[in-house]
């Protein structure tokens, strides 16, 4: 697609087999997502729990195998692949800093793991120096290399988790809700750290979050997902200042504002997303949508280009 895109995702579909009450179901978590990530760009993916945003990230690093569609890194197809080059180039920061570090491994070993697995280090001294540099880069003292996760706070653990993704330095970091498990004060520090690192290392970043406020601070572009599909995609400012899709409007309305009079009234939806087991035949958002018309119940809106954005809605 894009000339300077480092990552191209085309019509990605992922489904899971689920057994419930003795019956087998096929649950489609991602239903035809296309994204492209430009060099040095931060693309935010926002959506509520179960919308498939994490599954998109996990398919990129090869943790889930897509049913169809393609993922290419710098023009090379890496769909579900185990290419060494890709493994070191695309790395993931995980949501829960308490679960993402092995309690029985020293921080230094966890930080150096990608290098160790892929035979990156040539000498013991070089390895220690690289660990120290990575820890320093995330604002931890190099002495943390010898400590164990239980000795660290949540924020320190997440810093260690980030250090793990930058040794050796990758091209792309997939950040899956990297701050949602942290205190608000620590969230800001970790976000700032990620922005600094992005600049220093020239990273491209896919930033997955359910919090549009957090996404707004860090990303250049935002893709809004609902039930496995992208419903709106545009530059961050465009999405925050002028949301058009009714679902995006409700997300923007839900961001706490210093000035309550600026709230978009009446935009916050009621009810819950429909079950993934019983996907509505038309637009997945129709049952909750204030603008839903008869057409929305039967006809799935395609993502189309409207003005300065991509939008999937019949009525705006």
């Amino acid at each position: 697609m894009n000339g300077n895109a480092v990552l191209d995702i085309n019509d990605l579909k992922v489904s899971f087999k689920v057994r419930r009450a003795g019956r087998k179901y096929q649950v489609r978590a991602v239903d035809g997502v296309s994204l492209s990530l430009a060099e040095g760009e931060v693309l935010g993916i926002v959506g509520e729990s179960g919308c498939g945003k994490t599954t998109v990230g996990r398919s990129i690093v090869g943790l889930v195998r897509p049913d169809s569609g393609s993922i290419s890194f710098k023009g090379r197809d890496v769909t579900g692949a185990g290419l060494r080059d890709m493994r070191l180039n695309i790395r993931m920061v995980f949501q829960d800093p308490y679960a993402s570090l092995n309690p029985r491994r020293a921080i230094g070993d966890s930080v150096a793991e990608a290098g160790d697995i892929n035979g990156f280090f040539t000498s013991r001294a070089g390895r220690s120096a690289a660990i120290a540099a990575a820890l320093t880069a995330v604002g931890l003292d190099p002495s943390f290399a010898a400590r164990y996760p239980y000795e660290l706070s949540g924020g320190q653990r997440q810093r260690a988790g980030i250090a793990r993704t930058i040794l050796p330095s990758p091209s792309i970091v997939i950040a899956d809700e990297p701050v949602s498990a942290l205190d608000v004060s620590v969230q800001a520090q970790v976000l700032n750290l990620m922005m600094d690192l992005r600049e220093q290392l020239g990273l491209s970043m896919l930033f997955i979050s359910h919090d549009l406020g957090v996404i707004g601070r860090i990303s250049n572009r935002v893709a809004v997902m609902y039930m496995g599909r992208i419903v709106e995609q545009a530059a961050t400012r465009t999405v925050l200042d002028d949301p058009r899709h009714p679902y995006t409007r409700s997300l923007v309305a839900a961001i706490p504002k210093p000035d309550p009079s600026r709230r978009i009234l009446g935009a916050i939806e009621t009810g819950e997303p429909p079950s993934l087991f019983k996907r509505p035949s038309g637009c997945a958002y129709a049952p909750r949508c204030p603008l839903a018309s008869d057409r929305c119940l039967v006809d799935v809106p395609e993502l189309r280009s409207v003005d300065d954005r991509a939008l999937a809605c019949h009525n705006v």
Partner: protein
Amino acid sequence: MSRDGAIFWLKPFIARPIALMGLGILLATVLAATFAPWLAPYDPYAIDPSIRLTPPNALHWFGTDQFGRDTLSRAIQSARMALLIGSGVVMFALVTGVPIGVLSALFPRLGHVLMRMVDVLMAFPSLLLALGLIVVLGPSVVNAILAIGLGYMTTTTRIVYGLTLRLRTETYVEASRSMGAGTAWLIGKHILPNLVSPLLVQASFVFAFAQLGAASLDFLGLGAPPEIPSWGNMLAESRTFITRAPWLLFFPGMMIVATAFSLNLVGDALRDRLDPRFRQLLGEKG
């Protein structure tokens, strides 16, 4: 405080005197087995019909048996057999149970087959299983270890299987996979290190139950050959003298109870140490 420091492991024993007592009995047994020839006041095999069935006295603290052999010396010598059987059974259970459990959890298709076979073995009471095997293989020390070990291989496999199923979905294992780690890396760096603590606890219980199992086999004449002193053999030989010389049963019986009980105490203390839910008992925050 390091998780692997000596204080870390000693704390549950210091906090509870009864666990410390268990540890003491256990150490005494190990010492007795190691230094048996020097500790035993008499040759455990020496026969002296002139003093047969002597009750406990200053010369023979535990009395003598129907051949005039010193019961104390034989009881000390028997600690060797007890430790041999115990460690043999633990080794067998771990060497077979850990690979089967780990591989079954990581490769579900293989797991379905292997775990059903383990379930079949588990359906038999372990002593019955051991008896059946001894009948087929013939009585010997090695066969006793195999027969008892097979029963505990199943429980070890089950524990390892369950833990590995949980471990493989841990985020740090996923993180490792996302960085290109293969199965060998995941097992060596993530799964096995996290199995060490629970297996240490399991090993102490298996060791204890192996004592009882070995004593039962010996008593039935299906364990160690009768000429080798073991607590079970001593019980078996002297049961016809139970009314005339009760000390012949009392002392070896007491040894079996003491080692099994102390191993259970040690196992409990280790479990409390490793299970965060018990941290409060040790005066540490969770």
